[in-house]
């Protein structure tokens, strides 16, 4: 009787363990890393030094983010690039705070959007 009860209890524990394992969130390898936001700022710094016209700058910016930070490009940049230029810096900050709990400050990006657009 005690053996049967012990077996049933062991089985129940095993089931609970399996179910709990199934419910766990898989590790998200597709998330934007904090280091990506640092690299993003570096890209803005490089673009800001360039003396080409705005259209070429925007093309270089998009190309660099797409090639160097593909995850950030697909999850964030492609969306903010559809919004008005004067809101893009704030939108990057908003995303960094919501998804990475990161206060993102990048003078080069802020200056880029303040000075290059009408």
């Amino acid at each position, binding site marked *: 009787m005690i053996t049967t009860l012990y077996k049933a209890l062991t089985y129940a524990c095993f089931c609970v363990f399996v179910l709990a394992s199934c419910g766990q969130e898989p590790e998200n390898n597709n998330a934007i890393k904090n280091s990506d936001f640092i690299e993003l700022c570096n890209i803005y710094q490089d673009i800001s030094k360039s003396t080409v016209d*705005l*259209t*070429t700058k*925007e*093309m270089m*910016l*998009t*190309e660099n983010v*797409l090639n160097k930070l593909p995850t950030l*490009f697909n*999850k*964030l940049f*492609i*969306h*903010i*690039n*559809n*919004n*008005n*230029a*004067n*809101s893009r810096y704030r*939108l990057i900050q*908003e*995303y960094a705070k*919501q*998804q990475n709990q990161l206060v993102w400050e990048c003078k080069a990006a802020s200056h880029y959007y303040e000075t290059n*657009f*009408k």
Partner: protein
Amino acid sequence: MSTDILNKLQTLQKNSNKRLSPVVKTIIHDNSKPRALVKSVLVANGNYATVPVKGAPSLTTSNNTDVNRRVRTFTAGSEHIVDKLNKDLLGGESYPILTTALGIATGAVSAGAGLVFTLANTGLSLANTASKVLARPGDEIWHHEKIGKEGDKIIYVSAFFIVDPYRRTSSTKGWLIHEEREEISLS
């Protein structure tokens, strides 16, 4: 509210599936204000929703569902940009020819509606009339934005056309080169 809006919107024709790369799209769109009718807003879990700039009730007015504007003219000195665009256009795609009757050259909003809605009046099928197109100095890029419906979904359409301003009176003068669609969220 959603039903009222749906009843006022026109049914969209099939998606042309003409797509330029995201990098080349930055060449042809208005860098300061890429979209006039909608904006992307951050919602839960890092996702974005497409919402009307002036709010859901605005969609009952045609002014808020249809915008047609010239966004770029390829002037002398922009050859490197034209080259980049043409490389993308040569990527194996062919592009449909549209007619003057659709009104893109004049920018007439009501006529422009035909660009992404039914082409029954023109007798022209986007699928059946294809031609290679390349941009040249002097050409213009026109951006046509429209909000319509597909079944019970409210859809935003962003379509770009190459227009040759010197052939405005010709029967063929506008080429669709890029189209993208997104479902609009009203909540």
